[in-house]
């Protein structure tokens, strides 16, 4: 089964093939995307079936490594490790990736840069597959960074518009801030055990010093918070909606945000060494869950509702990791990946049909596009946690684990989050599909929309109650919800949904809240000031600092240079004057004198021979006279 290692290679090869082609050829070869991811999905599912139901989490089925480079006596290894966790993730990522690819064929068909879109999507999928299959933190980090780049490219795909451009830079910078944590964790891990191999790290983790464990744990939590959009690094995700909708689907479901949860799950034996780290994860997760659900209630943009719901669901997974329950977290991660990508793709069809993202301008769509409405409803019910959809089972597994870990407060907060989730789902669902139709030209989706979303809907329907069989092979066991548990969560869900119905029927919208409590509504509008916090604490001081440096540059450095230039110019002006008046003056005066004198004397030179004769004769006569005078004077003496 060594060909399982090639699962990430197929999309990566597709990327390499497309990346260097001219645009026209790339646009013709977009079918390469679904085909290659499809091959990966087939291989992953075959691998899954091959090992099902054997295997154990702690014993990888396959490992493979080769030395990338050598540092002194240590080898830098790149290695793959496929165990039950990895193969579950591989299957999930490639199936969701395949659905998104097929859907993108429809959604992006008129974009002139669709070839590049598929190219980046392939790289994105390849990076996520490499991340989950890697048995080595170096390879994991490389894939992690690659996903950051791909999300940047996809969010900013329509880079000529201002909003996607800003959103892509924001997403990249915020996740980069998280990546720093991963990098520090890498250094500390290497210091603690001298290797980047997962097997070595997990084996030696119990003997690490406490300080290393806490540092690694907190840094990894920070990194995962960046990728999985947890507080305080959640700000990038709602803005990431500026990208194409299928890209949002893959970022929100299969790849980007799942990476943080996955890495934490992988490193759980290290994190579990420190109760502090787990507590931080638990509380960050549950607070983010409430935060996301609360903000989702007040959004009017369908994609933003889904974005905040992603933040909230990821918070639930984070909290599950915080009590050490990998299985519940991964279970929810997988079911969430299916129903959230389903919701995004269906929302993409709705946006495509109505031409707006504002739910208040939709309405009555159940009559216009019944199939898409049905599919969206499956996803929405799963998100709300309705029996027997998969979301119900995975969410209850997490709630159960809260109770098992004796965390009643967290459990109560989880129920509150579930109620809020049911509330915004009900409100959105009613607003979008019922009431007066605003869009008379909205139409049913094309086959290329219905096939992938339908496939995801089937998974959403089936994955829940079959969990015991397919997840049971994760060595650890996910219990089906007990009757009291199911009763409580369904009751909470019904209360939430009823509140949603109430709000919808009484037309209680954001304006109603704004009229009752303007300050609260303002805070909710500003996303409880998380963005403002960064604006104030990071962006503002950064611009202030750069302005300060700019003015320092202007006044001090430019000043010195300008002063030097000015004084030099003054000096040369002075030297020029001295030259012009002093030296040139002396030379000119001399020349003028010589010329004047020569003008006087040259008159003698007439050029006439006879004149010269006369001069000569005159001179001789004068000489004779002088001679005689001298002789006479001598004689006289």
């Amino acid at each position, binding site marked *: 089964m060594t060909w399982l290692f090639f699962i990430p290679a197929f999309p990566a090869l597709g990327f390499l093939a497309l990346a260097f082609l001219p645009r026209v050829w790339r646009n013709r070869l977009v079918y390469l995307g679904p085909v290659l991811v499809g091959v990966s999905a087939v291989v992953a599912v075959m691998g899954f079936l091959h090992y099902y139901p054997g295997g154990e989490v702690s014993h990888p089925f396959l490992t493979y490594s080769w030395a990338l480079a050598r540092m002194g006596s240590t080898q830098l290894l790149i290695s793959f490790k496929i165990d039950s966790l990895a193969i579950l993730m591989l299957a999930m990522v490639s199936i969701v990736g395949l659905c998104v690819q097929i859907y993108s064929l429809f959604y992006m068909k008129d974009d002139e840069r669709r070839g590049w879109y598929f190219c980046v999507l392939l790289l994105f999928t390849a990076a996520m597959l490499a991340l989950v299959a890697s048995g080595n933190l170096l390879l994991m980090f490389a894939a992690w960074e690659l996903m950051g780049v791909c999300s940047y490219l996809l969010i900013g795909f329509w880079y000529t518009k201002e909003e996607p451009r800003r959103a892509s830079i924001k997403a990249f910078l915020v996740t980069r801030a998280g990546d720093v944590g991963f990098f520090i964790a890498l250094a500390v891990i290497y210091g603690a055990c001298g290797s980047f191999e997962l097997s070595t790290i997990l084996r030696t983790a119990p003997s690490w010093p406490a300080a290393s464990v806490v540092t690694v744990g907190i840094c990894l939590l920070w990194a995962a918070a960046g990728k999985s959009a947890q507080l305080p690094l959640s700000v990038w995700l709602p803005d990431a909606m500026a990208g194409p909708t299928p890209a949002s689907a893959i970022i929100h479901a299969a790849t980007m945000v799942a990476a943080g949860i996955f890495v934490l799950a992988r490193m759980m034996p290290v994190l579990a060494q420190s109760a502090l780290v787990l507590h931080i994860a638990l509380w960050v997760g549950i607070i983010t869950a409430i935060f996301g659900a609360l903000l989702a209630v007040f959004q009017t943009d369908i994609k933003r509702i889904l974005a905040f719901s992603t933040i909230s669901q990821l918070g639930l997974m984070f909290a599950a990791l915080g009590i050490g329950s990998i299985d519940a977290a991964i279970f929810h991660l997988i079911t969430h990946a299916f129903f959230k990508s389903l919701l995004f793709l269906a929302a993409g069809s709705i946006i495509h049909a109505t031409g707006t993202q504002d739910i208040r301008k939709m309405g009555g769509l159940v009559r216009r596009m019944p199939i898409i409405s049905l599919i969206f409803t499956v996803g929405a019910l799963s998100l709300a946690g309705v029996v027997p959809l998969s979301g119900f089972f995975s969410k209850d597994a997490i709630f159960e684990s809260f109770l098992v870990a004796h965390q009643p407060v967290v459990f109560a907060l989880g129920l509150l989050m579930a109620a809020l989730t049911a509330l915004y789902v009900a409100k959105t669902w009613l607003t979008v599909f019922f009431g007066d139709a605003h869009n008379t030209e909205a139409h049913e989706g094309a086959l290329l929309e219905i096939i992938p979303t339908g496939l995801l809907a089937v998974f959403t329907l089936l994955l829940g109650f079959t969990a015991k069989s397919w997840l049971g092979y994760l060595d650890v066991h996910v219990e089906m919800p007990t009757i009291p548990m199911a009763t409580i969560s369904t009751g909470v869900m019904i209360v939430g949904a009823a509140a949603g119905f109430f709000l919808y029927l009484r037309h209680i919208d954001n304006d109603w809240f704004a009229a009752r409590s303007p300050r609260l509504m303002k805070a909710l509008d500003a996303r409880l000031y998380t963005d403002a916090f960064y604006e104030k604490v990071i962006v503002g001081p950064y611009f202030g600092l750069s302005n300060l440096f700019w003015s320092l540059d202007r006044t001090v450095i430019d000043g010195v240079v300008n002063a030097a230039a000015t004084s030099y110019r003054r000096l040369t002006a002075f030297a020029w004057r001295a030259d012009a008046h002093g030296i040139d003056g002396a030379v000119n005066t001399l020349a003028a004198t010589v010329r004047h004198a020569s003008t006087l004397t040259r008159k003698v030179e*007439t050029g006439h*021979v006879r004149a010269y004769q006369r001069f000569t004769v005159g001179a001789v006569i004068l000489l004779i006279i002088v001679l005689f005078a001298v002789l006479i004077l001598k004689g006289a003496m």
Partner: protein
Amino acid sequence: MQLTVNFSAVILLAVALFCVGLYGALARKSAIGILMSLEMMSMAVTINLITLGRFVSPHPLDSWFFTVFLMVISAAEVGLGLALTIALYRRSHTSEVDEVDELKG
């Protein structure tokens, strides 16, 4: 018949000849005239030489040698002068020295 030669008369003749030559050299415009006048001055000097050799020197033959020498030099001088005049005529189609003032300062 013993021809008696008066010393003073001969010297006066030489002086007269020299003065005529000097006047001619200064007054003539023609290059040939100037050359002729120069020859006259030269002849006056020769007469002086012969006369002084006859009446003053103890060895009269010395002056004869100098005279012959002087005549040869005069002949060469005239040849050179005429050659210059011809060259001047070829250049500027004139033998009037006043017409030529190319060396005017």
